[in-house]
């Protein structure tokens, strides 16, 4: 229960909550520049949130508690996940409870909350978005579980900080077939879970092609700000998870404040780089038709399963 550990947790959550709009802004700016536009600037998502927070909250008639609770629940679960995942340090007070399954369950809870809110509105698009989101989630959750599980087999535990520490001490594990397959599977799963191209286009305004956006069509004002923040935070947390598992260098393993600060800075840098690369790739990809999405996700599930089997059988590690 060291002070540095508590500070590390708090700093992780704060950086994620406050820095997420910056990441989103960066990704939009990279995309704009590559498409030949000037872009709105890296701070535009902050400005958007400030605008939204000042508006009057509006709730459609006929919605119940599911609709009202969902934004807060989404942000809350993602913040707790940000506290658990070893983004900057593996020696925090919550390290003992930071289990892989708990983190995936928290993220799933956020998805379910939003899906219920979409159903709660009673509109056609809300229901459509909710059902599509749950289809994707049903295929993605096992993939995330299996991919990280593949990395947990050499470590012998599903505790995330222990897995990251194991990878820090034995980097050769990451270059094994299990590591590479798990990376590929997790990357596809992250794209699907956060609703990026090729699974879903976050900047579309065509309702019939929406997956995530259709669920949140009825939100306005501060609720909309929270929902958008929550969705962006999920991207940050998942990119952070990807970076911690597969490029763990720089994460603090001890109780020194300088190491934690370094860890935070490197975390920000890694996530920014991953986000920029993702945004650049999105310029070249097209959204996959909805009935082909299960093919893509089944493929990533297979990669994750192969990662698990090869880490059991190959190499004797």
């Amino acid at each position, binding site marked *: 229960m060291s002070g540095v550990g508590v500070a590390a947790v708090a700093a992780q959550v704060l950086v994620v909550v406050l820095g997420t709009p910056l990441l989103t802004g960066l990704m939009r700016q990279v995309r704009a520049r590559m498409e030949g536009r000037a872009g709105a600037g890296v701070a535009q998502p902050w400005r958007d949130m400030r605008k939204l927070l000042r508006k009057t909250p509006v709730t459609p008639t006929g919605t119940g508690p599911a609709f009202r609770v969902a934004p807060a629940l989404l942000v809350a679960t993602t913040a707790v996940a940000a506290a658990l995942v070893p983004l900057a340090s593996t020696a925090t007070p919550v390290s003992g409870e930071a289990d892989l399954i708990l983190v995936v369950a928290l993220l799933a809870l956020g998805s379910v909350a939003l899906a219920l809110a979409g159903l709660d509105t009673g509109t056609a698009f809300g229901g459509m978005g909710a059902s599509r989101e749950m289809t994707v989630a049903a295929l993605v959750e096992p993939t995330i579980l299996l991919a990280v599980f593949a990395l947990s087999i050499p470590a012998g535990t599903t505790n995330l900080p222990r897995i990251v520490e194991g990878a820090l001490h034995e980097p*050769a594990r990451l*270059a*094994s*077939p299990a590591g*590479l*397959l798990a990376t590929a599977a997790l990357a596809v799963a992250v794209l699907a879970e956060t609703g990026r191209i090729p699974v879903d286009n976050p900047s579309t305004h065509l309702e019939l092609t929406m997956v995530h956006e259709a669920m949140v069509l009825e939100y306005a004002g501060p609720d909309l700000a929270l929902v958008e923040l929550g969705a962006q935070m999920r991207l940050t947390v998942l990119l952070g998870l990807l970076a911690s598992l597969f490029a763990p260098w720089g994460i603090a393993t001890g109780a020194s404040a300088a190491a934690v600060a370094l860890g935070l800075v490197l975390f920000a840098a890694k996530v920014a780089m991953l986000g920029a690369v993702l945004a650049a790739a999105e310029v070249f990809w097209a959204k996959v038709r909805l009935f082909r999405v*299960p*093919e893509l*996700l*089944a*493929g990533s*599930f*297979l*990669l994750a*399963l*192969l990662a698990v*089997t*090869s880490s059991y*059988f*190959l*190499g*004797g590690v």
Partner: protein
Amino acid sequence: MSDSVFTQLLDLACGAFLLTAVVVLWRRELSVIVDVFALQGVALATVPLLIGWHEGRWDLAAVAAGIAVLRAGILPHLMRRALTATTAPPHADEDEDDGASYGTNGPYGTASWDRTDGAHSPERTDRTDGTHRYRADAGEARETQPLVNVAASLLTAALLTLLAYAVSRPLIALDPSPATRALPVGLAVVLIGFFVLTTRRRALSQVVGFLLLDNGITAIAFLATSGVPLIVELGVSFDVLLAVLVLQILTTRMRTAFGTTDLDDLRELHD
């Protein structure tokens, strides 16, 4: 080369080998499938190279070079030729001159020729100089609905991999070593190849499935016993090459006779 480095590199090569087999199941475009198959040939050739380097046997390096040339060079080239032949408009074969002759003037045909066996003709668009030009058939270039859809095939591939691991336990127990521990990968590719052979609808996909089967068996041969005797390896390679040549010619004839290489149309002979 130290043991651990050898194990790691061998595992990487086998992992890439299995991954390419999975991607063949995953993708639909036949040209992509052929390119991925060429990559698998490279991964396969790496296995005897690594084993030879580790054991100091340089004849295995020569075998690896031969395998790379055959399975990553010649065979994909033959299949690409078959692919261009089947996506181009159907015309008479240039390799036979007995039987009915179709009187062709090059790849795009003359204005009139006789079809004696009921194949449907693709669409024509006229050119300004009066000759007809056939539009290439894009539907031929991709795998249409396979017998088992892609998502289910991928899940079946997962089951087949697990089955391969279960079945090859006695094989590994016979002679445990880093190379034999990777045997399940070869067996998994054999099973996936058989699966592709039986569930795909395009002629070229069946050829790819057969070649996956053969690649898997060659991988097992190298991982289990550092290869079969050279004369047998030569015989096997030669046979595979001839088989693919034959299948390529038959694919072209199929396109001419049936108008498509969809294997579901092969329904003439039955009881």
